[in-house]
């Protein structure tokens, strides 16, 4: 007998009963369905309801759903519930309230949003609170920060002197003494913003005096200044044109794929060549990579460099793109519209003006759709 045979037999053959027996069963069935159904007692209804609910709920998917819910809540609590600047680990830090100064000469560990920040502090740090959340300000002394991991949109910045250091990478040292305020970067990148609005990006091994930023140009490859043995800054050597070509070729060919090293190379190139077509291209590439990573603040910084690179069309597009990011990604629609208006002032009629006007119209429409009061729009 083959498989096909037994399956065929099983399919074809049926049981049956004599007609009179079916007739008797039919009468019996009619009697049973005509019988009035007694209403269920409360406990029977309870059991029936519970069974029905269990059948409807399907235990396995419900258990999986509850497990995912609890896991998500746990993740949220660990990563989101802690407000930026929440201090943990050490009792001394827990009492470090806004406005208070922490004076210490030891190693501290604190949580800053999702980042764990290691402070090697030799001096006074004040904790500030105001617009934009909580901030730190180095009053006096020296502090080394190790910040990681850092979420893409989370900003960690510390004020020192008349500047502000914003972490783009991982570890840096700030120093404030009678000679001035100096930032040194050990790993990654740190953006230094002066109160006057100027800003520079420091990469690994570079240091910058706050006074230099506010009063004059930044020198590339300023030596890192350890506290114990300060070294004089290394002067910048002018690069010959042919070498410049080689440097550009090396940079551009080495940046085919996104990497940390590539970003650092782009930043270094931009510092030594802040203007020109190539600077614009570098900054644009940097911005594209940052946007791909979701780090829009870094992208804004790069676009700002591109905008000030005097790269013609590239600079103009960078300014438009920056406005777009502010409105779309960072919820700063009003600021974006103000920037656009500033850009439009004095812009002659033409393709550029049309593009800017179009973006402005899109942003205004988007704001209206999102429910913002049109009266508040610039």
């Amino acid at each position, binding site marked *: 007998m083959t498989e096909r045979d037994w399956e065929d037999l099983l399919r074809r*053959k049926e049981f049956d009963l004599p007609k009179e027996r079916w007739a008797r069963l039919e009468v019996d069935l009619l009697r049973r369905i005509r019988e009035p159904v007694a209403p269920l007692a409360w406990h029977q209804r309870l059991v029936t309801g519970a069974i029905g609910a269990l059948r409807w709920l399907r235990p396995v998917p419900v258990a999986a759903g509850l497990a995912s819910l609890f896991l998500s809540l746990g993740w949220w609590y660990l990563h989101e519930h802690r407000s930026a600047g929440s201090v943990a680990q050490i009792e001394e830090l827990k009492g470090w309230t806004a406005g208070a100064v922490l004076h210490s000469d030891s190693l501290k560990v604190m949580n800053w949003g999702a980042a764990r920040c290691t402070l090697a502090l030799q001096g006074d740090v004040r904790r500030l609170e105001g617009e934009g959340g909580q901030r730190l300000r180095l009053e006096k002394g020296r502090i080394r920060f190790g910040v990681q991991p850092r979420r893409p949109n989370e900003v960690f910045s510390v004020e020192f002197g008349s500047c502000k250091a914003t972490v783009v990478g991982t570890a840096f040292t700030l120093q404030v003494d009678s000679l001035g305020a100096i930032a040194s970067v050990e790993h990654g990148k740190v953006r230094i913003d002066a109160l006057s609005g100027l800003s520079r990006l420091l990469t690994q091994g570079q240091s910058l005096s706050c006074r230099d930023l506010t009063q004059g140009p930044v020198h590339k490859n300023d030596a890192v200044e350890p506290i114990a043995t300060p070294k004089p800054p290394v002067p910048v050597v002018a690069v010959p044109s042919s070498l410049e070509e080689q440097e550009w070729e090396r940079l551009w060919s080495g940046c085919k794929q996104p990497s940390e090293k590539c970003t650092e190379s782009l930043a270094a190139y931009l510092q030594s060549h802040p203007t020109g077509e190539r600077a614009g291209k570098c900054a644009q590439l940097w911005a594209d990579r940052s946007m791909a990573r979701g780090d829009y603040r870094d992208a804004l910084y790069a676009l700002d460099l591109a905008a000030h690179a005097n790269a013609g069309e590239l600079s103009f597009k960078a300014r438009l793109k920056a406005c777009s990011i502010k409105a779309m990604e960072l919820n700063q629609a009003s600021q974006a519209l103000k920037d656009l208006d500033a850009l439009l002032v004095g812009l002659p009629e033409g393709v550029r003006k049309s593009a800017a006007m179009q973006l402005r119209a899109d942003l205004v429409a988007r704001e209206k759709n999102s429910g913002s009061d049109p009266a508040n729009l610039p």
Partner: protein
Amino acid sequence: MNLSGPDGDTRARTDGEGVEYGNEPSDEILVQEALAGRERAFLELYRRHRRYVLTLVVRTSGRQADAEDLVQECFVQMHGALGSFGGRARFRTWFHGIVVRVCHSSTRARLAQKRRGDSDAVEMDDILLETIPSPEDHGAGARELRDWIQPCLDKLGLSHRLPLVLHIFSQLDHSEIARVLSIPEGSVKSRLFNARQRMAKCLDIHGE
């Protein structure tokens, strides 16, 4: 669906959608009429499907002894649940769900009885087994079915026997079986595969 028409008549079989009884109303229409309180419509459903349900019950539960009671129970439960047939599933899928639940309950009750050592139940099995006349007793293959195939089917556990019977005898597809048994479609496929392998092994042993 392998449903026959009313006893002794020559109506065409359904195509599985319950709509091809010549000019007769479809199962779904009969359900609507039965819901409206027309007993004749329910009786028509009963006559249409009782022989099929009888066979399905015997193949699934592996017993002829209380097959009549189980058929009656299936139809009584179907009558009570007519209001819950919202037309989302096809009638046959919905009705198979009821039949399978009844068979499950019966098997569980029988196992409990056997565990308690209730000899009456076993004896009644043996008496009634001989009293149900069946066309299997005549024609080609009847003996093989009774002596070889059904015993092999009985040896399968309910979890394997149900998908096999629903697939081969009822000709339900994998997704329909999954809905009837409330298990994933992948489980249906694996159980069918295992059941077929066990059947082949069992039949070979008998054939030797």
